[in-house]
């Protein structure tokens, strides 16, 4: 396996471990894209899914909250619609634009917490009465859609369903937004532990025997704990929980099987985790910490994709002359003269004004941009070194001129990641601003 190394200090945007990343799209069944909020995780996940579909794979992308323009571009319904939870295929126009041919296919599912849980109940409840009792339970009604953590459960559930279905070669999971990339991984385990816990068993079984808490069981400490909790929480609360759990009991084997199965899937050889980071010091640090925590856990973290990096236009590093010391007067004069000459050849609609003021402004902007490039490079360097030590892949995605929510932007991310293509510098800023 080839490992990309960065032996020189110059940024090398064109030199990326593209084969290794490309191999993941073919060799793995599940690609989990993790990262803290605001780093462009959804966009990167979409770009990976598009790339796999363009390579002829049957791909499904699970996402939680895609940008409206991304939905529009892909020809799917926006998150606010009734389409939540349903499989949506690409529009014919999007297929054509993306040059997805033959067996290649890209479907999208936006996660829906409430219907995922309702679906579970429908599937696993023993009979109609149990089903109704769960669905009407106040705890269930609130737990299933209103509270934190349900997005992770819903994603896990969907991954299970899709991997069982066998209709897809690759499942790309855009994990729910969270401060901790780990939340997604821990959700299945929490569910299993929860259902296994003695306290839950205790809550369920006395209720079965006595209609309410009998506290006749052998786990004295746990009984005591429940009594104490009840003192604080009030009687009704634990009864409702107990009834809810009792109803779930019949389903819990199914639940447990799934949670265990999904965890095994996610930690197995057919899965890969990719960390998306942003160039801000905080997001880079958080990605760094994620890598550290994952070391030795068996989680197949394959690498880091550093999104929205500002790179120096000609692919080299920022010239020393720009970042250090004042600019030579002669150089400014030369630039002013060149601006004047270009203005004489093609006056345009605006007034050039003082060519030296314009030249100074141009140099000022170059310096400002140079400091952004250097700042991003500093944020990235610790992560890059760490991935190198861990023998993981590291790739940079340049910040594209505007929000990448159109198909062209997704393809261009693919070009950068998989075909070592650099953005031509003439395009790097020439677009109009967004609406």
């Amino acid at each position, binding site marked *: 396996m080839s490992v990309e190394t960065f032996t020189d200090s110059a940024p090398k945007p064109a030199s990326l471990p593209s084969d290794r990343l490309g191999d993941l799209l073919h060799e793995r069944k599940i690609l989990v894209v993790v990262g803290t909020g605001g780093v462009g995780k959804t966009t990167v996940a979409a770009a990976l899914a598009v790339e796999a579909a363009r390579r002829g794979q049957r791909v499904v992308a699970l996402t939680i909250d895609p940008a409206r323009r991304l939905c529009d571009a892909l020809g799917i319904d926006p998150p606010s619609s009734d389409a939540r939870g349903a499989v949506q295929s690409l529009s014919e126009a999007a297929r054509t634009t993306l040059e997805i041919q033959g067996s290649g296919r890209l479907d999208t599912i936006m996660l829906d917490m409430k219907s995922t849980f309702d679906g579970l109940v429908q599937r696993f409840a023993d009979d109609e009465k149990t089903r109704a009792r769960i669905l009407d339970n106040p705890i269930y009604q609130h737990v299933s859609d209103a*509270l934190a953590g349900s997005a992770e459960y819903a994603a896990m559930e969907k991954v299970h369903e899709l991997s069982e279905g066998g209709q897809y070669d690759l499942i790309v999971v855009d994990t729910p937004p969270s401060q901790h990339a780990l939340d997604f991984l821990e959700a299945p385990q929490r569910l299993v532990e929860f259902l296994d816990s003695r*306290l839950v068993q205790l809550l369920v079984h006395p209720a079965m025997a006595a209609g309410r808490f009998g506290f006749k069981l052998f786990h004295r400490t746990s009984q005591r704990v429940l009594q104490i*909790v009840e003192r604080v929480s*009030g009687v009704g609360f634990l009864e409702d929980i107990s009834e809810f759990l009792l109803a779930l009991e019949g389903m819990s084997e199914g639940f447990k099987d799934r949670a265990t199965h999904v965890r095994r899937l996610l930690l197995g050889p057919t899965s890969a985790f990719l960390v998306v980071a942003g160039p801000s010091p905080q*997001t880079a640090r958080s990605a760094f910490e994620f890598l550290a925590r994952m070391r030795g856990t068996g989680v197949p973290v394959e690498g880091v994709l550093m999104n929205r990096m500002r790179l120096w236009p000609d692919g080299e590093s920022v010239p020393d002359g720009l970042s250090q010391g004042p600019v030579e007067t002669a150089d400014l004069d030369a630039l002013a003269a*060149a601006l004047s000459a270009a203005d004489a050849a*093609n006056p345009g609609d605006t007034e050039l004004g003082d060519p030296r*003021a314009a030249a100074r402004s141009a140099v000022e902007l170059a310096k400002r941009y140079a400091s952004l490039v250097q700042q991003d490079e500093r944020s990235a360097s610790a992560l890059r070194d760490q991935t190198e030590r861990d023998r993981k892949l590291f790739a940079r995605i340049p910040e594209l001129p505007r929000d990448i929510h159109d198909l062209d932007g997704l393809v261009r991310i693919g070009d950068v990641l998989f075909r070592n293509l650099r953005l031509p510098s003439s395009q790097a*800023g020439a677009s109009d601003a967004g*609406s």
Partner: protein
Amino acid sequence: MAPELTPILDRRLVIVTGKGGTGKTTVAAALAVAAARQGRSVLIAEVGGQEQVPQFISPGHPPVGYAGSELIPGLTSIHIDPHEALAEYLGLQLRVRGLVDLVMRNKGFAQLLNAAPGWRELITLGKVWHLAQMQDAGRPRYELIVVDAPATGHGLTFLDVPRVVGNAVRAGPLRGHAHLVEELILDPEQTLLLPVALAEELPARETAELVQRAQSDIGIAIDRVVVNAVAPPPFPPGVPDDLDTRLHAIDDAVALGGLPRPSVLATCASYLRARHQLNAGYVEQIRRDCDRPLVILPYCPGGITGAGPLADFAEPILAAGGLPA
């Protein structure tokens, strides 16, 4: 109709919310520092995740943890860990240390907590409520509490939990406490939600949704919206705003001595112009969608640390009505 602007420093509780990467923590820290410098006794409470606030305000400060610590005169910082808050709450309710330990050290209870959703949010807000009640010699210990809330998505869920629990629990102390917390959050005289947005597509849309849902689903007051990291106009007055096009028109072979090639200068200029235009467009969209006065904060490469710079940064937030865009 946007509600009238009450001076932000006259509130008891300001909950700063926003998607990750918006600079929410910087805004919360800046607001807290500015308030403390104006003589208020201020508490800044960080919720979940890693502790960051002390490093923003007093770089090099040791972690403040759940006990909290005064960072600068009049400003205390705490990091609310839900487990510690739960232990404290149980202690207040049960009044017997041994019982609390029995519960908190029980493995089954730990597993229950691991799986159970919602309690972290509730107990955290409960702790904030408790801090708001604290008094020294008949006066509130903290005149202003600034909460650095979890990233949006979880942000509104965070505020909705007291209502949900209050409804799900039929009777008992927990129900009463959940309602107390809800009352504080929904009191427009005392509590303000301060959303922090970026002038980009996704954050702009999410902020609009947040403002709308905060009003319809929760009923918490929002009187201004912060738009952070807005790129400044690239060209000074007198310089044509098509400078990047003009630079592109120069033959790339023209020698400029130690300066980068003309095409490189052109790309730098067009990047910064495009960035500014992009931001300006979304600022207008946020203004339209949120129907609230906006506070526009400039993009500060490298971030802002230290009490002085933070206080300066907060100036526009304190000014009622915000700044012109």
